């Protein structure tokens, strides 16, 4: 073989396969082999090599008959939050261990219909709650990256889409699905040096995606290049009558619309994102990003998002409130785990099942959510948080009067070591400080690699756009990608 096919991007696989440079089966076999050899990363909960091969064979036949689809020949990883028909779906929880859906989520169904094949179900933070992939019932995902300090600390791949991030970075799959509630696509993408976009709320159907916080959850792609993200997002998006919050709008041709020429675009730099105690390296990265965008023709303007400091507490009221209710269905009655102690009544069964089935972080959020919705506290917390959410959205609306896009760092630090922040939930929650505002406002936002820190770890830049302006976000990310020349990849140690 001339090249290692697993180093190719989605676009390269698609085009090379079409051109007859290689077969889809060769591609699938290459990734299957990488997946099988990467147990140490713990990126997958379930591996589905046969599914990848079946899709590849179908693609090879389709090519023979001239009946190709947009993603024919491309195998991908599926975050284990998407229900997949006939394949265990757990949300990385014990309570759903062994649950095999009889149905396919809308988004995964669209990807299969577009010709993609499934390499497996990717590990994640339990019920997508976490920023380090340390809350999975099936164990931590280990980042393929190491610090260049000679130490051998196992690093967090970020979360909650940590399995997706690690797998793409380690060439176990060329692309994967993620979901983003407060930064779960963008932060892990930044931690492992890949790209990921959370589209406008409502672009991707939530039907068949295990719910965390309904008003925030959005699916999106993760891949090594901006173009790959555009390709995947086109396949994943679209109106779904089964999701009342889905947007009834046509899906733009984002890949065809890619352009890194930002002339006439104004990019806002929100002053409130210069948080205290932020590492100088992050600041320097931000400055580099500004320079890249200027170079691409954009005008840089200072903007203010005055309610930014309230975004994190607001998020940590609204998301747990919704989660406390969304996760009530895991009760041991109809599916999943049931713990029925001898002589137990219904209440005992609930208590035993949920005590055994949920991990500590999930329990913590259920309790927070239950508390903030309780009689006597509802107005002080939930109602207040909804008001602040409106103010945050209004901040963005005001900012759009003077700019078209916003540039910020994706996370306040590079990847941290596993275990480093586990003892302090609040320190962990701070990871989401830059990603949460766009989630609360339902805006499209993307992380793109900007460079490495002094320890050789990737850092990400975030582009936030107006509602429905995924094109603007992708184009600005493309401008950074072209200029940052980010080619670093982790040395294989697994």
């Amino acid at each position, binding site marked *: 073989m001339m090249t290692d096919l697993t180093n190719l991007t989605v676009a390269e696989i698609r085009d090379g396969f079409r051109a007859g440079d290689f077969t889809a089966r060769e591609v699938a076999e290459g990734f299957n082999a990488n997946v099988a050899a990467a147990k140490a990363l713990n990126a997958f909960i379930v591996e589905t090599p046969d599914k990848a091969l079946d899709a590849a064979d179908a693609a090879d036949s389709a090519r023979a008959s001239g009946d190709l689809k947009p993603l024919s020949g491309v195998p991908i990883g599926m975050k284990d939050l998407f*229900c997949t028909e006939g394949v265990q*779906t757990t949300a990385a929880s014990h309570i759903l261990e062994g649950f095999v859906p009889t149905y396919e989520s809308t988004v995964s169904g669209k990807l299969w219909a577009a010709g993609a094949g499934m390499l497996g179900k990717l590990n994640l933070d339990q019920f997508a709650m976490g920023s380090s992939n340390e809350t999975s019932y099936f164990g931590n995902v280990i980042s393929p990256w190491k610090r260049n300090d000679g130490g051998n600390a196992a690093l967090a791949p970020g979360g909650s889409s940590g399995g997706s991030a690690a797998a793409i970075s380690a060439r176990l799959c060329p692309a994967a699905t993620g979901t983003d509630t407060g930064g779960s696509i963008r932060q892990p993408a930044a931690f492992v040096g890949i790209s990921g976009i959370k589209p406008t709320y409502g672009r991707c159907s939530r*039907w068949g995606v295990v719910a965390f916080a309904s008003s925030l959850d959005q699916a999106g792609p993760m891949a090594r290049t901006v173009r790959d993200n555009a390709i995947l997002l086109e396949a994943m998006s679209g109106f779904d009558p089964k999701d*009342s919050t889905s947007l009834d709008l046509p899906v733009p041709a984002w890949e065809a619309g890619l352009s890194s020429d930002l002339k006439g675009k104004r990019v806002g730099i929100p002053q409130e994102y210069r948080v205290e105690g932020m590492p100088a390296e992050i600041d320097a990265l931000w400055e580099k990003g500004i320079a890249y965008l200027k170079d691409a023709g954009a005008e840089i303007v200072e903007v203010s998002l005055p309610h930014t400091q309230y975004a994190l507490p607001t998020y940590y009221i609204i998301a747990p409130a919704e989660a406390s209710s969304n996760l*009530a*269905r895991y009760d041991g009655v109809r599916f999943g785990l049931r713990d029925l102690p001898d002589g137990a009544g*219904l*209440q005992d069964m609930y208590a035993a099942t949920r005590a055994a089935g949920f991990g500590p972080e999930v329990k913590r959020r259920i309790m927070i959510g239950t508390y903030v*919705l309780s009689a006597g506290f509802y107005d002080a917390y939930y109602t207040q948080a909804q008001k602040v959410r409106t103010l945050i959205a209004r901040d963005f609306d005001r900012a759009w009067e003077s700019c078209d896009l916003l540039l910020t760092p994706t996370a306040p630090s590079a990847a941290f070591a596993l275990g480093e922040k586990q003892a302090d939930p609040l320190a962990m929650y701070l990871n989401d400080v830059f990603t949460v505002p766009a989630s609360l406002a339902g805006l499209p936002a993307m992380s793109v690699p900007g460079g490495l820190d002094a320890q050789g770890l990737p850092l990400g830049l975030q582009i936030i756009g107006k509602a429905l302006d995924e094109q603007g976000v992708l184009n600005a990310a493309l401008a950074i990608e072209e200029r940052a020349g980010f080619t670093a990849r982790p040395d294989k140690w697994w």
Partner: protein
Amino acid sequence: MTESTYRIQGATGEWEVIVGLEVHAQITTNAKLFSGAATRFGAEPNTQVSLVDAAMPGMLPVPNRECIRQAVRTGMAIEAQINRWSRFDRKNYFYADLPQGYQISQLYHPIVGEGQIEVTLDEKDPDSATKVIGIERIHVEQDAGKLMHDQHPTRSYVDLNRSGVALMEIVSKPDMRSPAEAGAYVKKLRSILRYVGSCDGNMEEGSMRADVNVSVRRPGEAFGTRTETKNVNSVRFVMAVVEYEANRQVDVLESGGTIVQETRLYDPDRNETRSMRSKEDAHDYRYFPDPDLLPLELDDAFLAECRASLPELPDAKRKRYETALGLSAYNAAVLTAEAETARWFETLIAESARIQGKSESDVAKAASNWLLSELFGALNRLGKDLETSPVSPTQGAELLALVADGTLSGSLAKQVFEIMLETGDTAGKIVEEKGLKQTSDTGAIEAAAAQVIAANADKVEQYRGGKEALFGFFVGQTMKAMGGKANPKVVNEILKTMLG
């Protein structure tokens, strides 16, 4: 409009009863409120359940337009405010019959606001007092499933057929003051729902049930503490609950106790209510807006369609029957109380008018009398109702036409009707085959009358001596001799002449 005089006579004086009702009415639709699953009553357990109803992971609710439409039409029928903007909330609690762990309901912004219903306290009495009962709101919500405790010695089973079925909760103001008012309210509400077609009102099958809020007070004083008796499923039971609860509360208060705000259950076998849970044990339902659903926004076209599709409602119909059709207040009230009766009656008079070539108002009176006495009497006897009636409105109209044109006398008509009920044949066919046609043949009648007079010389003497009531005896005997087929008018005339 009147003030109720119903009072509980306690040992320490009079008590007034305050009643408010929350009626849960299942919306008549083919599909559930937020899923495409069917809603057939009595289906095998767990055969009417979609992935959404079973709350499988990742499933999402999508509002059923028809359910929303029916709630709006119901609101319009009680002259209520229709809220163009409303929202669904989650009511969170754990129970095995509640798969989501929450019920989707409308606490903060219901679809229908304040309205009212006028009730007649005794529908059989045209002079009965009427009273306007205020409606606080109508909101739309999901029903829960059902637990089955009798399938296994130690386990309970769950049937999710009802899970997600659309209900309207119709909340009255605390405007009722007696068991009779509560009963009349439920009946009238049921009548309106059936007219509108938004609920079949079938309380036995559970498609309509009431939570009965009762408190007592000294007349004129502030409201007392109320209790709520859940899931009462007949008009009679609603009245029984009010009566029992009011008397129980008076007993408690008069013996120095206090009323606890609590939920109670009614036991029809023992005719008593029992405490289910007190306010202290009450759930904290943690209501919050359902983030899976967008607010409901109703546009002009939708509202206009809802209004245009409303049928003539019972009050308007009753007035029209009295004024345009000239029916008695009693007949009008009974004919309009149930949509089905009015529908039957209107077909009957339309057919009668067509066959007889007259206007509906010309035939309405005879038709209403026949329907209410003859047909209802027969159906009652046979244990049937209008829906299962062996005689159709068209067949009834044909019978009425034969009476109107003199072919049948009243008593012959009764005979023909009996045969119709038995055989299902048409009146015309029966008259033809059995020769039941009325005769005005004066010769035959005179002969029969003469025989009767000859055989009853004593009574003739008494009659002629002034006992005029005996005239009916001669009519009856002559009719009998004629086999019931004589024209009674002719019989009367002949007897008058012959008896002098």
